[in-house]
């Protein structure tokens, strides 16, 4: 876990137009490994003070496979994370 955390870098979330320093909230791996960017799941939790969690493609697919209600699905959205070089 420590190794992957040390690889934390900056990412541009393409459709949110947001720069963030984060790893996958589930497995701790980098959100995107390829220079062209990777699919990333964004979960928005909370109504008034919403907090966002980001998941790599594999964890995101896993999570979305378990979401059953349409109401719950509304809290998730796919985006692209493009790694920014240090």
């Amino acid at each position, binding site marked *: 876990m420590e190794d992957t955390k040390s690889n934390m870098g900056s990412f*541009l979330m393409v*459709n949110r137009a947001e720069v963030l320093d984060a790893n996958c909230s589930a497995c701790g791996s980098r959100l995107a490994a390829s*220079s*062209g960017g990777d699919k990333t799941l964004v979960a928005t939790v909370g109504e008034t003070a919403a907090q966002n969690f980001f998941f790599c493609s594999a964890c995101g697919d896993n999570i979305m496979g378990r979401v059953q209600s349409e109401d719950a699905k509304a809290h998730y959205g796919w985006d*692209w994370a493009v790694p*920014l*070089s240090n």
Partner: protein
Amino acid sequence: MNQLESVAYNFLGARRSFSSSPDFPSKYHLLGRGVALAQARCAACTRTFDAPRLSGERFEAAIPYVAPAAEFGGDEAGNHFWLFVGSSVLVAPANPALAPLLEKSRVFVGDRILVATANSGEGGATLVIFCQDCGETIEAKASRAGRENYVWDYVVEFEPRQLLRPMKLFPLIGKTLARQVGLLSVNESMHKSHDQEIHSAVQSDDRVRAFCFARDHLLEGRGRLREICSRALRAQVPLAKVKAAFQALGATFVRGDDGEDMILAPDGFPANLGSLRIHRRAATSSPRARDFEPRVHPALTTQFAGAGR
């Protein structure tokens, strides 16, 4: 300080240096955003942009294109069009903040880059710049709404033009324009004239006006062909040249659901089409000739051609 912070710092630092030093800072600028770059490299692949002075296109002068009608006036960001005159002519929007530099400089136009206005997470906006290859990859991944945060721009560099006095410079520009045979209708008498006559000659050029007309309409995404033809006639822009401008900008001509003929902007417009280059060579001999191939719906070709002059 990581790369991203460095880029943000450079932009902020450049703003300060630009406002406090109106003379020629030895930095690159972004033509559309109007800010200076202390360091210019892609935030994704780290490729350093080529120095416009060494590998860019050189333009002896920039002339503001003052439109005869409001609809020709500027781009979606409120920037006004300028005409860059060198061995070829470039029509591109430029940020008003650069006007003092544009008016007294020789301009080198370099790499085309994608500029992202991103939330930095602390309530502030950060400009992140990408080279053309990375920019196209990112743009392809952006949704229609997401593309609002991205804009294509040019890296430019300025060089003081102090050796040439205006009275010597403008005849030179006139000769350059006059060489654009068949593209710019510049009168020979302009060689002896001053800048105001050059301005009016450029502004009365049908091809430039048609380009601005087509671009302005494509910014709305789609438009009814009948209305566009009507507006072109009212603005006294030849329809044949408007048609050519739409084609050069990659527009599509289709039949709408209601039976009306429509003109559609290409995907990604205007992000992928920020300017039009008018070269001396014929379009068919240009390396980008593929971009100029007609894309008119066959059913509309006759109608549009018939409406032209």
